């Protein structure tokens, strides 16, 4: 029987693992979304007094800083979604063999979504 110390060791070496990175990014993106949500709701809530109030709020987001921040949020949301699906797959199937591939797939999905969003802001249909 292998020693439990070898199986469950919990030290800095584990933090270089793809699984740890996926865990950390899932948490960081979750915190970012949690901080953003009240602001998102407050902005949309301005429509309660009519379209001009909402437009006044949206005008703030025309600044390039907001475009970068919005792209970052889309990246965070897509990352939280993909890494959350990875977590559900691992928990429901108990199969951890492909967890690294799922994490990489999640990262690729999130980067693609953010890129698509950033490019869409420049597209005029």
């Amino acid at each position, binding site marked *: 029987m292998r020693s439990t110390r070898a199986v469950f060791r919990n030290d800095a070496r584990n933090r270089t693992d793809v699984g740890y990175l996926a865990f950390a990014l899932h*948490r960081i993106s*979750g*915190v970012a*979304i*949690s901080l953003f*949500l*009240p602001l*998102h*709701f*407050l*902005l*949309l*809530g*301005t*429509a*309660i*007094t*009519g*379209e*001009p*109030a*909402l*437009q006044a709020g*949206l005008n703030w*987001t025309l600044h390039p800083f907001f475009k970068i921040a919005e792209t970052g949020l*889309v990246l965070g*949301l*897509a990352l*939280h*979604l993909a890494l*959350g*699906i990875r977590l*559900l797959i691992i*928990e429901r199937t108990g199969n951890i063999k492909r967890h690294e591939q799922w994490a990489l797939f999640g990262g690729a999905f999130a980067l693609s*979504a953010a890129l*698509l*969003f950033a490019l*869409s*802001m420049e*597209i*005029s*249909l």
Partner: protein
Amino acid sequence: MTSGRNQMLWRAQRLSAHVLGLLVLVHLVLMVIAVQGGLTAAEILSRTQGAIGWLLFYSSFVILVSAHAPIGVKNILQEQFGWRHSTASRLSILYGLALVVLGLRACWAVFTGGQL
């Protein structure tokens, strides 16, 4: 906190995650479409004003995220920052209440567009 309550919160977070996954995917697609050519209040309200379907979609989104996010926030406050569970629970409950109130208000706002 009892392990039963922890288990209930764990289940609530996973159950909400299953539905939120689909809603977030729709939201992501919609965002990519909506920002094309710039995002205006008129454009947002033309889609949402008087649209019962979107009102139900976004209200469900708000209710589920108001359950999902505070559980995650509580876990992070306890596990990453070492907060006591009672303090972390109280803050996350307040956060959840704020989310549901502000979120449903936002849903109502874009549904009515100030016309009611």
